[in-house]
């Protein structure tokens, strides 16, 4: 009887650990700073080692990125209580870069990442920079992007949604083994992994959508 109870407790713990909704949280976010967060598309800076700096506007992905910021602004006004508004300008604390990878072996393997700078010893985000690594091949061995496919622009928007989410206090959905797409519930959260080139499995919520999924709204702070 006691053993059965222990097994039941274990199953309960496993279920809780693997729960995906609400989305896991981080300790930091923009909250604590101004309610309006400015973002920009500056040049990527010093000469790179294994990539070329690209212009987001010239690449034609600027509208996808703006759309993601608008989604979050809508969600923050209508769907959650953070009230954070994202506005496009210059000299902004939230920078967005696009790079084309010239050496997929040595260069970063992520589709995109975000470097979030917190005021030391606080949970308040001071600066952030998101980078798209176009032409990158991920560690699982397949191309992150296919710019010729119909879902390319949708994927750029999803990635930006995911990366903004990291600055809004939410974390990657946990992965489990034995099942496709890390066992995550497809479409449930922007913090899901990108499954297949251009997230071909639509593991992340399909764009365009109004705001962000409930599981993410519950956790942002």
């Amino acid at each position, binding site marked *: 009887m006691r053993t059965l109870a222990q097994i039941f407790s274990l199953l309960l713990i496993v279920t809780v650990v693997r729960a995906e909704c609400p989305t896991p949280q981080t300790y930091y976010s923009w909250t604590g700073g101004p309610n309006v967060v400015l973002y920009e598309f500056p040049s990527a800076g010093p000469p790179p080692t294994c990539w070329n700096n690209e212009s987001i506007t010239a690449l034609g992905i600027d509208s996808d990125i703006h759309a993601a910021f608008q989604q979050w602004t809508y969600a923050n006004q209508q769907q959650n209580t953070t009230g954070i508004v994202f506005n496009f300008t210059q000299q902004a604390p939230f920078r967005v*870069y696009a790079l084309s990878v010239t050496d997929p072996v*040595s260069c970063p393997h992520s589709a995109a990442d975000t*470097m979030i700078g917190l*005021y030391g010893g606080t949970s308040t985000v001071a600066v952030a920079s998101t980078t798209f690594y176009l032409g990158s091949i991920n560690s699982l061995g397949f191309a992150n992007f296919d710019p010729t496919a119909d879902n390319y622009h949708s994927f750029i928007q999803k990635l930006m949604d995911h990366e903004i989410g990291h600055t809004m206090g939410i974390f990657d959905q946990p*992965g489990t083994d*034995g099942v496709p797409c890390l066992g*995550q519930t497809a479409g449930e959260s922007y913090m899901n992994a990108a499954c297949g080139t251009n997230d071909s499995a639509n593991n992340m919520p399909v764009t365009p959508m109004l705001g962000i999924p409930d599981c993410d709204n519950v956790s942002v702070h």
Partner: protein
Amino acid sequence: MKGRISIYLRSIPLAWLLALGVAVPTIASFAQTTSNLADPKLKANASIAQHDRPGPPITQLLVEAHAKAQSRGVSWKGLDFVVTDTPAASPAPIETVLLQVYQKQACQADAIIVGHPIASAYHLSSSGTSVYGDYIVAIDTLLKDNQASSIRLRSDIIVTRPGGSLSLPEGNVNLELLAFPRLQVNVTYFQYLRYIQQSGAYQAIDDLSTLVADGNRWAITRKGFSNVVIPGFTRPSLEASISKSLTSCK
């Protein structure tokens, strides 16, 4: 003579013997260390692609943030950076994919070791946009030797890795990457490594190349993958299977 030694040993207090017992291995472990974190050649690690990031130098970000800190009522202590990313998943079961990934890594690696870090030093990357660490890693088991520069007779190597902490004139900076968690001193890691000829150091092939001892299993250090159980990635089964993996490299 034998009797004289016996008398001599009996005259030494037990505490001294215990102290000697502790001291000898400590001295021995220092004596075996061949890597030097102050080696000027290691400066080449500042320029490798894995340590580069786009954007303004960290010192500029510190200055910008410091200027705004006061207006936000923040007591200035520097910046703590966290680098997050969008993980990749596969439509195929992850274990199947990872087994192929690690077979490939075994072939691509210049060296494969099981080892534990014993010391580290952090630096700014050459672009000034990132922080990285050089670690002296003691080799517990060498599973694949570097054909270009053998490490068979070495007790340790330098492994360089993104992330670290620095105290700069503009403020303190900490950099943590979810894809490359910092190596912890005296924790045992399984590493697929690439040789950096300019510095003589090694780097992880990618974010999946470092596994940490977790009980009797090897867990991927990269955040988001640490719970994924890979068949055969147990201790010491993985170590034993590497030679078989290497025979199937083309």
